[in-house]
């Protein structure tokens, strides 16, 4: 009895903070999403409007377009990050001169605030002064992310890769380091070549860490805002108006809080659905394996 009470007592700060900063805001957003609320308008009152925000959402062409580019952005960014992150993780498993130095440098983007990342990439890609358009000129490519939708999209994907690949690398290094050596030696003796070892041994053995990393990156990429807002402002047109940016533009310039909340809830729902689909297709059938 004593220890049970003590347990709750020790847990209470965590539960309090979780409730205050996690659960309460979420319920609040959910509640707001069922209202018409524009606190800076003539009528700042919250007006309960049933599911009107959600109904509007389904027919909001701008939102649907934004969802489309977001999914493309998330797909290209996360797939590239996982592939590059894995290759880098394998490289960092080997010994080479200057390894510690390179590993540190490679991790630096992770500790940068997204807004700074956005500013740096804006500087680097501005046609008149940026290094990237300058270098690309040598290949006859005229990069202008203010005009080319494709270029803007690609640069945001590349920026995300630059920013977040180190996270993938770090978690995959952790996974690779903890693998036992014997099955890999055994596989060599059993006649597996490098490619077969990867598909038959390495990949299944790091699968849990890999999938956790993909989930983290996926959820994060779904709600990218600040870097893209800083770099392209969602443009040109709405080429890089990812849902995070879209919500921002609905909520802040238009102060459309109720509608913005509804979008957030739907995006959260979509993220959960995507993760659930991935989970059922990738993890659940293998779960019995261990």
């Amino acid at each position, binding site marked *: 009895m004593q220890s049970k009470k003590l347990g709750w007592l020790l847990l209470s700060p965590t539960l309090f903070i979780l409730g205050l900063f996690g659960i309460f805001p979420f319920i609040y957003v959910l509640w707001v999403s069922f209202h018409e609320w524009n606190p800076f308008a003539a009528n700042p009152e919250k007006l309960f409007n049933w599911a009107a925000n959600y109904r509007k959402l389904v027919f909001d062409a701008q939102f649907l377009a934004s969802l489309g580019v977001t999914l493309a952005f998330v797909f290209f960014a996360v797939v590239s990050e996982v592939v590059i992150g894995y290759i880098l993780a394998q490289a960092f498993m080997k010994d080479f001169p200057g390894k510690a130095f390179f590993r540190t440098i490679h991790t630096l983007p992770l500790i940068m605030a997204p807004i700074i990342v956005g500013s740096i990439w804006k500087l680097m890609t501005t046609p008149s002064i940026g290094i990237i358009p300058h270098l690309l000129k040598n290949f006859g490519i005229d990069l202008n992310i203010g005009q080319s939708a494709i270029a803007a999209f690609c640069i945001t994907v590349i920026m995300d890769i630059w920013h977040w690949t180190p996270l993938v690398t770090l978690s995959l290094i952790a996974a690779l380091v903890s693998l*036992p050596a*014997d*099955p890999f*030696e*055994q*596989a*060599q*003796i*059993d*006649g*597996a*070549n490098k490619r*077969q070892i990867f598909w*038959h*041994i390495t990949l*299944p*053995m790091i*699968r849990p860490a890999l999938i956790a990393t993909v989930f983290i990156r996926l959820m994060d990429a779904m709600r990218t805002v600040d870097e893209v807002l800083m770099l392209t402002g969602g443009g040109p047109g709405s080429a890089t108006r990812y849902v995070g940016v879209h919500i921002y533009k609905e909520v802040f310039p238009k102060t459309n809080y109720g509608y913005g909340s509804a979008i957030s809830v739907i995006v959260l729902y979509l993220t959960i659905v995507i993760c659930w689909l991935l989970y059922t297709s990738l993890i659940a059938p*293998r779960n*019995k*394996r*261990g």
Partner: protein
Amino acid sequence: MGNVQIKGVTKSYGGVRVMHGVDVEIEDGEFVVLVGPSGCGKSTLLRMIAGLEEISGGQISIGGRVVNDIPPKERDIAMVFQSYALYPHKTVAENMGFPLLMAKRPKAEIAEKVNRAAEILDLTKYLDRYPKQLSGGQRQRVAMGRAIVRDPQVFLFDEPLSNLDAKLRVTMRVEIKELHQRLKTTTVYVTHDQIEAMTMANKIVVMRDGRVEQIGRPLDLYDRPVNLFVAGFIGSPAMNFLQGKVATRDGRQVVLTDQGIALPLDGVQVEDGRAVTYGIRPEHITIGEGGIPVDVSVFEPTGSETLIFGRVGGVPIDALVRERIEEEPGKTMSFRLDPRKAHVFDQVTGQRL
């Protein structure tokens, strides 16, 4: 043919030499045990045969082909690790079939060979299970199954039984031996346990500190160890060692200890006055009149035998006798040493005389 030749093999790790020129000849179909204390280089030698460690010097050939620069998968060997190294995400059947899958054998052939191996190893019931759902002994058998489905030229075992409990170890020992008699595949088996070595081997290679001390049939090593190390390592309970000088008493050569106790010799040609170590195994001592006086401290009856711990002139000496002893500890008993079974070693070099 599955013979293995190891010629002058050395191994260094970053300038530190851990293997100093090892020569071993392994005939086709032989069961060879590498035995020695922990850290003597048994695993390193086995891993060099497997191709998992580079060979720093010398030459290893398998089936008449020098394999120094040939990768493990082309050496036609199968290995069983101490940890079993099963693939945790594959079923028993997939684990055993993996080498055949890698060799791109047809599905039907893989299934057939896996089933046959499973039958031999009594694993048929477990083919769909995952390694974590098996006991230690079953995992061990899966690892062996994965080795035998390939029908390789050579089996390599690295302490495969040391993670099992004592009883299972004895059972598996017999099973591995039976398997070898059935398949007649050349086997190199590493262990630190000299009983495993004695019971399983056709030929034992005793190693110490990266060198081969002696190679021979188990009973040859037991009967004629070439030096003190092998004499002390092979046999359980271990051989007794007493220091003394060779002298002649009543026309017979004996070893005289500092206390003036005469240890009997028979048929050993050593000049008088030489400082030697006298070795006698506990099982070659009997209790009876006319022996040497030993202060007995502890009796260990096992039912079939009694192990007696004692001291002569302060030096420990043990005897293993068939009869049950009904004496109080702490008294002096007369140990008769069998002179025909005595061993004499040079005190300085430790070599057999």
